[in-house]
């Protein structure tokens, strides 16, 4: 199926759930609300015409320009995106699903933004979500075992956030 057909089918089955679509992008993507993630993903995986049984990648992207001089020209408002790259083993088509979240939950600094976990649909989401939580600082609600995967368990902060402050010291090891 062509990306335009996939999006048309989604709009037919789940009207109003697609908040934004870009079919001319290099990898056509749709943007949905965080609350609709599981509904949309379940349809994407289980509908016989779609069959996205392969979750290639989950990425967290932090949009923030720290330099106050560059910020007005940056071309984006500060926010965080969770990007799901999906592909179908049966039909050999691909789709990108994005969820846009605030950088902090309820704009309270230090409160991680939240999105539902898709581990019940794809097992591979388990480790991918742990990695995104570890590095990009996004809380996946409903994940069976959400703990750090690449960094040590007592690490502070989430390094792939743009405002991450590099530690000067870790257990007596000097950073610089």
């Amino acid at each position, binding site marked *: 199926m062509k990306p335009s057909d996939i999006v048309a089918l989604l709009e037919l089955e789940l009207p109003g759930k697609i908040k934004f679509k870009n079919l001319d992008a290099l990898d056509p993507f749709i943007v949905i609300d965080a609350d609709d993630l599981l509904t949309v993903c379940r349809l994407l995986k289980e509908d016989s015409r779609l069959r996205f049984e392969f979750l290639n990648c989950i990425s967290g*992207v932090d949009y923030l320009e720290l330099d106050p001089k*560059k910020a007005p020209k940056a071309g984006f408002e500060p926010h965080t995106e969770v990007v799901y790259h999906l592909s179908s083993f049966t039909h050999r088509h691909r789709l990108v699903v994005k969820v846009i979240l605030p950088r902090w939950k309820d704009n309270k600094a230090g409160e991680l933004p939240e999105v539902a976990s898709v581990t019940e649909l794809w097992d*591979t989401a388990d480790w991918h979500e742990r990695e995104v939580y570890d590095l990009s600082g996004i809380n996946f609600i409903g994940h069976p075992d959400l703990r750090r995967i690449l960094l040590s368990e007592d690490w502070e902060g989430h390094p792939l956030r743009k405002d991450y402050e590099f530690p000067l010291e870790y257990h007596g090891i000097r950073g610089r």
Partner: protein
Amino acid sequence: MATVAAVQDPTIIEFDVRTDEMLVNMGPQHPSTHGVLRLVLRTDGEVISEVTPHLGYLHRCAEKIGENVTPIQFIPYTDRMDYLAGMNMNLGYSMAVEKLCGMKIPEKAQVIRVIIAEMNRIASHLVGMGAYGLDLGTFSPFLYAFREREMILDLFEEVCGARLTYSYITIGGVHDDFPDGWVERCKRFLDYLKPRVEEYHTLLTRNHIFVKRTASIGIMSKELALSHGCTGPMLRGSLDQSQGDPVWDLRKIEPYCGYETYDFKAIVPPFPEAPKEAVIGDCWHRFYVRMLELVESIKIAEQGLARYPTAQGSHRTEQPRTLPAGEAYMETECPRGQMGFYVVARPAKDAVPLRVRARSSSFCNLSVTNKICRGCLVADVPAIVGSIDIVMGEIDR
């Protein structure tokens, strides 16, 4: 009292011994974990009930570095991801950036890329084969594999000056053209390698002990492989062409670099020559898929070498100074599976991307360990982990 009765009859004591669950720590400095992987095994006697992998001992912040340097500066960091297949990593990242910039790559650069990528696949599968023998307790295949790999590394040293961290394939093509006489030397090497493959089969594939250790061990179903995002030989070893499964090889289904014009097969079971004990999805099949892929890679490299003298264009084109706004996700078929790179450029034109994400194939392949190790014996764990053929540099990044 039961205990008194047990002492009177010593045979009862033997059956009355209660076995407690025990946690066994395997790694991170264990030779068969292929680097610094730590597995915590929950065992009941000799039987595994749970495996918990702990990662991150080789984490070098590659993604964080990627968003602070230009794409061309990031190429050397990709070498260090899957360090056994540095060329394929270079290729994956270069192609993601080229997709983002909409660059057209000349035919000559494409041919060089295919030759080099396939040579690196051969080298990587040779290590995979040799190290797998090592895991199972036979030392000699490792020496034979490294003898051949050494010759590939010599060839790579001639083209780029490095033996492991090449940074040879770069954005817009490849760094240098082949030196004089390299094509002949490469052909001579492939002619030397072809009859050797049969030797490996006698050493391992048909070896009675090897078959005993790998056949029907660590069986993974197709559904499990798909759900866990397994790719490469790991997924193909679980497919069955006679059941109508597609030949899942990105070089076939989403061809890049002109792979559609090369004559080769994607390796998918069933294999008529498989031993009776082996079933699709076990360690033996994953190993054998790699062995057959090695032969296909020789075929592709030979076709590339035949095309090289007449290939048109330059080996490299200029790349734009800044990245256009947008994002690109590109997957390539690396020796260990689909390696994806996701590059997000800044909306305001800039040479440095906003985000670089590496989708590691070994990372997804390893995540299935817990499921396929359950119920097997402690001695089978190296056999299963070895058949996944992981490289920790790629998992931890």
